[in-house]
């Protein structure tokens, strides 16, 4: 019986891809006031941003309840006896906690492992895809875990922000705090370091930001997987993929949208590139 792979909706894995690779995605929740939506299930990225533009209140987000994971584990336990859950950085969300609690409640029914990826978005997604591919090819739970653990340090995420105000309001700004209050209009480019948002560099314009993203990817001589994502500007993702195509075959670049839960922090116009470096 093949290992089943579980992740959360902040991995930005599209439903098509999830279906194709047999990945179960547990959604977080995004709420406007009392109205709550399951991430990527009840609300698309497009709908979310349309709503964001109209709402005066800042949206809130919540990790999945342990119950959501229990439900998934119970269902999967009927098909397999080994489940690997890979989730968003525990410094950004309590999802890891929910998944672990659920594992303890489900108990011995099934062998469940939960890994804190210390990543988010496609930085997490690319690792999950690799895990699912390993599972599909018949790897054992230990082998899949090893595949994940060796890839975590090789997964790099660059996020271009039009504005940091959403990140700051949502309290996820991490080490990039010092960048608030710049007296010029600056586009911040951030990364994830030790599971937390951290500054990378700054540029004055989106084209310059994209150029930096290109130079960032170019640092890696061997690339296993590459992903580009957008929040509100699909045309930018085309441009980015085109820009990156000399470094990696364009048709193999995963394209996705930043999920609504992350979008609540990224803000309109944000772009992300994730690189999974090839191993030795």
């Amino acid at each position, binding site marked *: 019986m093949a290992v089943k792979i579980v992740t959360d909706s902040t991995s930005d894995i599209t439903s098509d891809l999830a279906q194709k690779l047999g990945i179960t995605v547990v959604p977080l929740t995004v709420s406007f006031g009392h109205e709550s939506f399951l991430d990527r299930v009840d609300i698309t990225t497009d709908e979310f941003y349309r709503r964001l533009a109209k709402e005066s209140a800042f949206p809130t987000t919540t990790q999945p309840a342990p119950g959501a994971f229990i439900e998934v584990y119970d269902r999967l336990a009927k098909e397999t006896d080994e489940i690997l859950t890979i989730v968003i950085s525990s410094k950004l969300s309590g999802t890891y906690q929910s998944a672990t609690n659920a594992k303890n409640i489900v108990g011995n029914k099934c062998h469940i492992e939960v890994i804190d990826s210390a990543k988010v978005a496609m930085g997490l997604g690319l690792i999950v895809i690799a895990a699912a591919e390993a599972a599909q090819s018949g790897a054992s739970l230990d082998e899949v875990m090893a595949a994940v653990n060796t890839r975590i340090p090789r997964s790099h995420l660059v996020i271009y922000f039009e504005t940091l105000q959403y990140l700051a309001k949502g309290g996820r700004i991490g*080490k990039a705090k*010092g*960048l608030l*209050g*710049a*007296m*010029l*209009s*600056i586009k911040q480019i951030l*990364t994830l*370091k030790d599971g937390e948002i*951290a*500054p*990378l*560099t*700054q*540029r*004055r*314009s*989106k*084209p*310059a930001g994209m150029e930096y993203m290109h130079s960032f990817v170019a640092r890696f001589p061997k690339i296993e997987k590459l992903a580009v994502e957008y929040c509100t500007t699909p045309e930018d993702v085309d441009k980015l993929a085109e820009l990156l195509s000399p470094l990696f075959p364009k048709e193999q670049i995963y394209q996705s949208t930043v999920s609504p839960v992350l979008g609540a922090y990224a803000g309109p116009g944000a772009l992300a590139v994730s690189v999974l470096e090839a191993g030795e």
Partner: protein
Amino acid sequence: MKQGNNINGRDFREMFTAATNWLEKSVSDIDALNVFPVPDGDTGTNMLLTMHSTIEEADRTPNGKISVVSQAMAKGALIGARGNSGVILSQIWCGLAQGLAGKDDFNGCDLANALSQASVMAYKGLSNPVEGTILTVIKDAAAAAQEQAAKDKNDVISVMEAVVNAANESVANTPRLLPVLKEAGVVDAGGQGLYTLLEGALRYLNGEAELMQFRKPQMIASNIPLTPLVFMAPERVAVEEIPFGYCTEFMLKGQELNPDKLRKRLKKKGESLIVVGDESTVRVHIHTLDPGNVIRYVTSMGTMHGVSIRNMDEQHQDFLEMQKQRAPATGVAIVAVVPGERLSEVFSSLGVTAVVPGGQTMNPSTKDLLQAAEQSASDKVIILPNNKNIVLTAGQVQSLTTKQVKVVPSKTIPQGVAALLAFDYEADFETNVSIMTEALSTVKSIEVTHAIRSTRLNGLSIKKKQAIGFLDGALIAVGDKTAEVVYEVLAKAEPDKADVVTIYYGDEAKEAEANAINETISTQYPNLQVEVVNGGQPHYKYIISIE
């Protein structure tokens, strides 16, 4: 005092103390000559400040040997060097000290050899030595000294006379060697400064110390027809250390209070004094070493309220702590030279660790930069000089500290901003230096100021008060209307290839005019993102970055 024989360290120090005072008298005239390498009118000031530091260090040594005194002077010059001319002057002092090493006193032949060594050092200090400058003057002076010493090696005065005569001729000849001087109709300012120093030293040797108090140094006329020129009167902004002590603030309530009188009385008791109010309430702010004295003085006048006394040394420590916390994870500190408070805030908001006040017409000394580097929490320091004239000074810091110091040679504010933004938190020190240096070429800089005298430069005929526009340091436009000059320079900066234009308007520019310029540019180049920032910088009405 007539000195015909050998000269020891004490005499040497006196000789150049007199020469420095002599130089001081013609500082503004020398500033006015300054057109090379940039017409910023501060050569005289920079040389004088460098000499002050040189003499101060000499005064510190009780030893009378020439080797010790000249060594101290070289050290003082190196630490206090300001601007290009100051840096070259410091090289001259280093050469003199090398030439006089191991000696108790010197004769004419020793002097000639030391001057030759000074000339060699001055040339060595520059990656691209240009003739028709202070370099040529020291070279010609040294050659004349050798010639004279060969005739009479014991007579110091005759060697000095030959030196001064040769320097005079050499200065007069500088416009023939350097076209920019010829075009502007001036002799080289740094050369003139060196001549004045040497001439002052000779006068002292000839026993004219008293006479010098009543006379002024001679400005050398070019040996080709000239018309004088100046761009801007130099603005002197002191970059002094903040005197620490106690920041004392309170409100004084009473009857028939006299704020003006109070201000006068408190003035002697401290710094940064602010006294505002009326007959019944006066608010006082003062930095003082003795707050008790201030409080004792005012308690007789009324009642005190909201008294606050803060230890500024502690505040400074807190500030240093804060700087440490701000140091990026990579452990690299960035020190930037920035004119004006507003622009300093811009740089701080973009992540510089320390700002050293300075810029055009107000070059910080090596010591100022050294201090900023030493005080930063990191062992690795990147300096952004943000001005062509400060690049050399910044380059001296590395030799004076055990920290690793690299200069990213930003020559303008826009270049400084571009380099700062390019800083990569994940890259190491060396990589960041190269990333930031590469970023310098990603931005074009426009600077617009006004001429304060009529002249010709770069083939342009300039009238007094006209706006003049520079593109990456080259003067390319002149006109009566500042905005028109801005548009003319911008048109030459390939704006259609750019994404972002940032207009920093200075303290002499009006916000409304800056906004109007923004509107015009935005209409003409709809693809550009234009931003207007109150830079508040002195000297330049507009600094504009195109990237």
